[in-house]
């Protein structure tokens, strides 16, 4: 049983949250992990997510929004099922990060922080994702893809498309 009646989360996530709030000396320390887990489950941080997390942590919605808006990896609008994050920070930039980004924009037909009509992909230009040794790199949801070229990128995108067809 979740500590919150009518929780908007799955029973597993609700149970995880019930535990999370107990393990920090300060309850509100659980805020950022909760926002991340909630985003993974719901797809984005909706107003309902803000409300429930505020309630779970005895915070004001205002507090939650203050933190939420600080982090660029938390979003308040739905993203595509596969969120393609292309790095254009220095190493990647030197090794073709911008070409890669332009290529993605072209093939997916969307720009930065936009989503394809079928909702399958969204695209984001991001700062260093810690894969500089294998630049240029991109991240799709939690998967890393490195030493990319436009052709390799097409192949990567195809693997995700193929998953959908099954």
């Amino acid at each position, binding site marked *: 049983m979740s500590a919150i009646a009518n929780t908007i989360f799955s029973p597993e996530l609700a149970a995880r949250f019930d535990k999370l709030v107990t393990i920090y000396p300060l309850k509100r320390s659980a805020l950022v992990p909760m926002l991340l887990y909630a985003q993974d489950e719901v797809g984005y941080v909706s*107003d309902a997510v803000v409300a429930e997390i505020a309630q779970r942590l005895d915070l*004001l*919605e*205002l*507090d939650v*929004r*203050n933190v*939420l*808006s*600080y982090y660029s990896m938390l979003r*308040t609008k739905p993203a595509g099922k596969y969120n393609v994050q292309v790095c254009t920070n220095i190493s990647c930039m030197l090794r073709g990060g911008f070409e890669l980004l332009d290529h993605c924009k072209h093939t997916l037909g969307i720009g930065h922080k936009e989503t394809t009509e079928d909702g399958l992909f969204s695209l984001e230009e991001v700062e260093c994702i810690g894969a500089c040794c294998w630049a240029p790199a991109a991240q799709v949801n939690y998967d890393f893809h490195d030493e990319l070229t436009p052709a390799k990128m097409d192949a990567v995108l195809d693997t995700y498309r193929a998953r959908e067809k099954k």
Partner: protein
Amino acid sequence: MPDVTLTVDGQKITAPAGTLLLEACKSHGIEIPAFCYYPGLSLQAACRMCVVRIEKMPKLQTACTTPVTAGMVVITDSPEIAQARKATLQLLLGNHPLDCPVCDAGGECELQDMTFKYGAADSFYTEPKNHREEQKWSPVVYFDRPRCILCYRCVRMCGEGMDIFALGIQNRGSSSVIAPNIPAQLSGVVENGVELAQLDCEQCGMCIDACPVGALTSGTYRYKTRPWEMNHVATVCTHCGDGCKTTLGVRSVSDGSQILRGDNRDKSGMNGDFLCNKGRYAFDFANNVERLTSPLVRHSDGTLKPVSWEEALTFAGTKLRDLRQQRGPNSIGVIGSNRTTNEENYLLQKFARTVIGTNNIDHHRTADFVTLATALQGTTGKFASQRDVEKAPALLLVGGDPTNQAPLTAWNIRTNVRLNKARLYVANHEEIKLRRQAKAFVQVAQFGYGAFVESLGADNDFSNAVRAEEQLIVIIGNELRGGELANLIKALPNAKFALLADYANSRGASDMGVLPDVLPGYQSLQGSTIASEYGAADAPGLDLLAMFDAAAAGNLSALYVVGSNPVKRFGIDPTALKSTFLIVQDLFLTETAALADVVFPAANLYEKSGSVTNSYGDLQLVSKAADKAGTRSDFELIVRLADHLGHDIKSLVPFGSQAKGLRADQGQTRGAESGEADRHAVWITANNLEPKLSPFDPFAILDEIQRLVPGYDKLLRLQLLSGNDQHIAPASSGLVQIENRKDLVLPSSDTLFTSGSLTRYSPMLQDVQRHQTTEVSGHLTSAD
């Protein structure tokens, strides 16, 4: 904490260990600039303006967060520091519009002053500035985003100080922005001409007050004037019974002098830096076009027509004299006000008792001060002052809802709990907001305060904790009166007490004897010094409701109402007054004034001098700030009416050379020009000349109050004239408990956004009420 000694700029200074370096320097006259630091709020260290060099520390340190330690060696001013501060300013100015010539804060802006001081006016940032339109968050709070320097003062003020948490910070880095509780992407979005960002809050304007720049501006003041074009007069707020000092910014206009702004510049009042919505903005009733500016007399055709002062006074005076002769003094009633000064209240009851010769005098009572005075008679140090609320280690709040009815009391309680860890106990029939600060809260049944008082003797956690407190301040709402109030006082023999009332001078009206059954100082109608001096009737007169009953029965020949609207307040049937000669003195044609035979246009509390006593018994000076042509002070009107009744004025107001005391007003109370008058007074006294007094001098009556009213005799004139508050405890003893006294207390039920009959004449209050019920009706959640 023990004191430590440190060296600042080569000077040895001493401060208690733990003091912040910035504060220690400040108290030794060493100024360190600061934007984000605000005394009493949590530390932020967001601006880096306060950097200083501390020996043995690697980098420049922020003086606002560094506690002093013994032997510390500090440099607060050097080329290195100046350069660091200049660089900070250049960054702050990076996207600052530098629109000082049109900014409300221009001339009173900390950023402007610092830029001037450090010569940082040029920014090396060459990109175009990122302009954003100003946002209207409520009728009284506007936000100019580009001017904001992100010091977080407003955020902390609203959250920590007000316990509202209406403001937060969204986004990060150069896109950080102060915003009310709305999704970040909606900040700055306007739909149908209304900003989506709206403040659902107490509209106190404290955020504006704390803002060091012109990013938050006031809806009532913005773009009205420049600060240096106003005169600033410190006086007392007219709205609730808390007694905040407010500084009114006034400017000459064709018909007098108009109030443009209320704020709290000198912070020397018992309210420190606090003002609520009404104290800050609700002065605008004074500028209302509906103000009466000419006496009115009812003509034979039944309408009220403007006439000259002489005609109106002669008519009213002659008529009153005839009625007194024909139908006796006890056929006449007088109703006073809870917003007029002590001097006016005293004068009015003296007028009733000695000029008319009746005890038929009363006012709209908003708390039972008679019981308080009788229950505490003969004691010393049992009346709590507003300053006690700010310092006491423990407080018990029984009934009342200070957040709405006495906002300063609520602020002081919150501050005391936050800064001094005071223990607050709350007993209330509602879940009032202050329970959030309470250590313990008990819910009482709506009319169950009597039972609660009994339970204080019982063995339960709440009562045990309360009884164990050694220095307890008990703040009592107006739900408790008569026997219940007396029992509460009896139940806590070691505590100090205060009773919450409404309006600026409810307490003063009671203290000054605007009551049918007691004289000033709650003294008896029989046998007291004042009774024998007055030589008035010793039987109690009619109370307010009895006067209207008498009127309905055709037994009240005349009624003189000063600054009160009983017809509306007490739901009086207008036909009750049809055979009563009615004289009303007021600002507006209220429900009561509309029935009158003679109406005198009166000045309000911001347009006169004198003193008022707040609910706690703290007495303060009222200084004349504004001026409205065509009105006269209630004091002057009472004296003139007595004159037209054929009364010897010198026996009413002790002025001139026969006066028992010549400590008269030399203009000290007249506000703006006081300095000159003071010098004049010194010169007159030094030359053994007699000051020239006028019968309209409130201080002549204050002399008499000090002579005759126990408690007020302790008043120090110099303190009063310096604008300091003084705590008055009615010091009488031998007061008689009046048996079967009717409970005539009618709480005003005012909220944060109402102020009795003045509400409808304040466009700001109307606007804020509308805002609270429309723009923010439920779609945003405030903290409460």
